[in-house]
């Protein structure tokens, strides 16, 4: 067992279909990653410190993995 992904969360995700899970639990990371990347881009344009954009990009990495996996799996479900 791990505190990173406890049983209660695993069971909740696995009890739903891919579509149902991505349309509920999948939406929050998607919205968050879009906002974070837009914010990082805005900071870059405004020439704010490199540390600020690096922090935003670091936070966005796990969200990008979750969103990317969801997109890939939803696309592969469409394939014959």
């Amino acid at each position, binding site marked *: 067992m791990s505190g990173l992904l*406890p049983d209660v969360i695993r069971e909740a995700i696995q009890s739903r279909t891919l579509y149902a899970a991505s349309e509920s639990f999948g939406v929050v*990371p998607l919205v968050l990653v879009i906002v974070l990347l837009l914010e990082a881009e805005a900071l870059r344009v405004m020439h704010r410190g490199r540390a600020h954009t690096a922090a935003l990009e*670091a936070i966005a990495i796990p969200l990008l*993995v979750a969103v990317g996996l969801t997109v890939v799996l939803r696309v592969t479900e469409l394939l014959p």
Partner: protein
Amino acid sequence: MTAAAPDPQARAQLALLGVLASAVVAVEACLVAPGHLLAAQIVDGVLVMVIVNLAMRDRSRMSKRAARTLAALRALALVPLIRVAGMGLPIKDRSDAFGVLTIALALGVAVLVLAPTVGISRRRFVTLRMTVPHLYAVVGGAALGFVAFLTGAPALWTDGDASDAVALALAAAVCAAIVEEVVFRGVLQLTFERAAGALGAFGATAIFAALYLDAGSVALVLTYALAGFVFARSVSRSGALGGAVIGHVLLAVGAGALWPIAFDRTVPVDLHEPYTSILLTAAIGAVATIPHGLSDRQP
């Protein structure tokens, strides 16, 4: 000798850090553990945005103490992030180990990128010295692996699983243990300690323990909390993570693989409640409060 001038900005930020850290623990206790997961994920998402943006201020114009608190605030964003990303993983038909390994690897990369921005050297994550604090964490982790097995920690795989599933489960447990140490002791505790001293280390360990609130039994939750305090003590005393990382890996592999194999998945001793929980609580109190005089930290 004159006392240091009060720094209202640092004090206000420290209070904010305390409020937000408490909010993170409250989300775990009030929403995740009872199963209100979508609500927990939305609250965690809001917390990530609030914390990240509060920590965006220009640190060159503030006192050293205020800058340290801001770094701790930025590190705190990792905790709600774990939940938001973890719940967003599409693991429908895949094994539990696949989910744990994916979130551990993604979070590990994020921490390695974030560490320098909060003033933590990545070298600390791999530093191991043959000194008392590190040995204390290694021995403590190995012993608590057995205690976790006795208090009901689940095995990493079931009888009849294929060898590749066993290998994946082991890899996931080891990676998760390493990443948990790097996140909670390497980044969270060290930045919290710089901002708030011993109270900061206590807060980081409380947040770590909150992630295990749904572990199944009170004794198992207390076992993981005790492990958190043992590893926190080691990192506080040495300033490096090597011993805590090895100790946590031994705990995870011992509780989920070695002891179940050694005892054929049967718990050899029937622990009685509430005595086990009382004993574990007393042990937590002892580890958290009694000074051990083990420090090998460089000045």
